[in-house]
């Protein structure tokens, strides 16, 4: 698994909810050890893709491999090495900060008790370890959410809009930390609909209506579209996809 060139590979991945097509034959390669941004408006299929990779949904067609394992066939294997931070803070409000992290540590079989303190230091919540979660500010909860997704040292981190409602200072701290994780070999897939965040990703996939409009580094995407900003580039790709359905 260590030698996999791609942390995530999908081929013709399709998922629909009733009449709504959430993913339309999506083929994607995410190289290992980078931060990959899924960029697109609401309803473009970002969350569906992340939930599929997390093993929460079953694809209607196509396949997805995470760290070398098929997510449908070997979900048990991938769950140990994938960290998942949901869009909403999935935390227990009536437990303390430390108890929340310790719970997820137990669930993932982390036996080293020091690891809980360690992740609390990483997200700068060590001094609030004994605070009840419902007394925390929104930003602190986002940090704690990240801590619970990190505690088992995942090799792939799926972050669904991790910086929504987070102030610029904390957002910068999050991104510094994501790049540190990349240096340790962790692959990060982060969804966002904020274009300026996209600049911080190593590579980007532009999603719209469940399809991959374009893929590459931010510079490549701008250059190929012949536009100044990513936002303009995105609109250009969207327009082009409308012309040729």
């Amino acid at each position, binding site marked *: 698994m260590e030698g996999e060139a791609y942390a995530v590979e999908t081929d013709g991945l399709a998922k629909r909810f009733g009449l709504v097509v959430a993913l339309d034959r999506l083929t994607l390669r995410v190289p290992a050890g980078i931060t990959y941004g899924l960029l697109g408006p609401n309803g473009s299929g970002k969350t569906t893709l992340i939930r599929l990779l*997390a*093993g*929460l*949904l*079953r694809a209607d067609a196509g396949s997805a491999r995470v760290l070398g394992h098929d997510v449908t066939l070997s979900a*048990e294997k991938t*769950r*140990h090495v*994938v960290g*998942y931070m*949901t869009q*909403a*803070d*999935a*935390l*227990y*409000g009536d437990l303390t900060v430390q108890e929340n992290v310790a719970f*997820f540590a137990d*669930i*993932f*079989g982390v036996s080293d008790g020091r690891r809980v303190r360690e992740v609390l230091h990483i997200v700068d919540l060590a001094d609030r370890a004994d605070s009840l979660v419902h007394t925390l500010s929104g930003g602190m909860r986002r940090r704690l959410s990240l801590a*619970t997704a990190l505690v088992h040292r995942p090799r792939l981190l799926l972050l669904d809009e991790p910086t929504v409602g987070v102030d610029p200072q904390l957002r910068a701290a999050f991104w510094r930390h994501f790049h540190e994780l990349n240096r340790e070999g962790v692959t990060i897939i982060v969804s966002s609909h904020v274009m300026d965040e996209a600049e911080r990703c190593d590579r980007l996939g532009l999603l719209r209506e469940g399809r991959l409009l374009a893929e590459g580094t931010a510079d490549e995407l701008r250059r190929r579209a012949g536009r100044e900003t990513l936002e303009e580039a995105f609109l250009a790709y969207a327009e082009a996809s409308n012309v040729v359905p």
Partner: protein
Amino acid sequence: MSFRRGGAVARRIIFQLRRDHRTLGLIFVVPLAVLALLGYLVRLPSSVAIGIETSGSPPEEAAAQALESAPGLRVVRLAPGAGEAELQAGRIAGVVKRAPTPPGAAVTFELTVEGADPNKSALLLSRVPAALARSLAQLGGGAAPQVSVRYLYGGPQFDPLDYFAPALVPTFAFLFVFLLTSVSFLRERTQGTLERLMASPLSRLELVLGYMGGFGLFAVVQSAVILLFAVFVLRIHYVGNLGIVFLVQAILTVLAVNLGVLLSGFARNEFQAVQFMPMVVFPQALLAGVFWPVNDLPVVLRLVAQALPLTYANEALREVMIRGAGLQSATVLRDLLVLTAFAGLFLALAAMTLRRRAG
């Protein structure tokens, strides 16, 4: 004060409820169904079965006829010596037999009441001696008849609480545990942690077993507290082994935890979870033998009662607390097995249906 703003709130609520078919059903259908069932049960013809052992002798036949003409009694004629077994089987509430007396002495009857249900005992004690007196008068016997009374279980000190407590204690424990578990498992879904757990190595069975362990602990402690309160504060009479009573209670409350987890999966919010309460509460309160003995129900309702877990807990606790049965009793053993099977079934169903609903 603006009627427009208040009206906007009212309109919004009407729109919301109109789309929530389950709530509409609760508002309009459930009360009618419950009322119909309750009315039906209250109007069930109630007669108390009384056995009379008769060998065909004139005093015994006269007594049987006098009992048959008494209101509220259903007379079952039995061969001499057969009464006790019928009484123990619960098919009759009391039995009359002629007591052996020396020749020439006044005719004496012995009335044995089953005793578990004080209301039935009271009815028999008021009507049977009067009817027997009439029978002897018909025979021309001048002397007043002697009627001696014996209780198979309980005794004159038994009051209605002694009869209802063995059914009310498990009913309360069951309902509180069920409500607590179903709402708190639902919170796991609404706060998003269920999604996180489903993406972790935690299996569905591990999750449900964890709930059973965590809530089960409080449920079992609650059972013990309710039981001790009933016995030592309310001073209900009991004869059986409290350990067995506690065992039945413990299994029942763990069953309630599993049922709470199972049903909460079919609710999208706390509102809908609370709506399961009447659906679980009313049938069990009315049909599980708390107020109307299951054996007295018409056959269709008896079949429904047999599908309700509380029926078995109530039966077992009455067997133990009033009749003094132990683990060697086939009824108690069967009830324990059925309750355990229900608990296992709800656990398995909760685990099986979880993933689909989380996705």
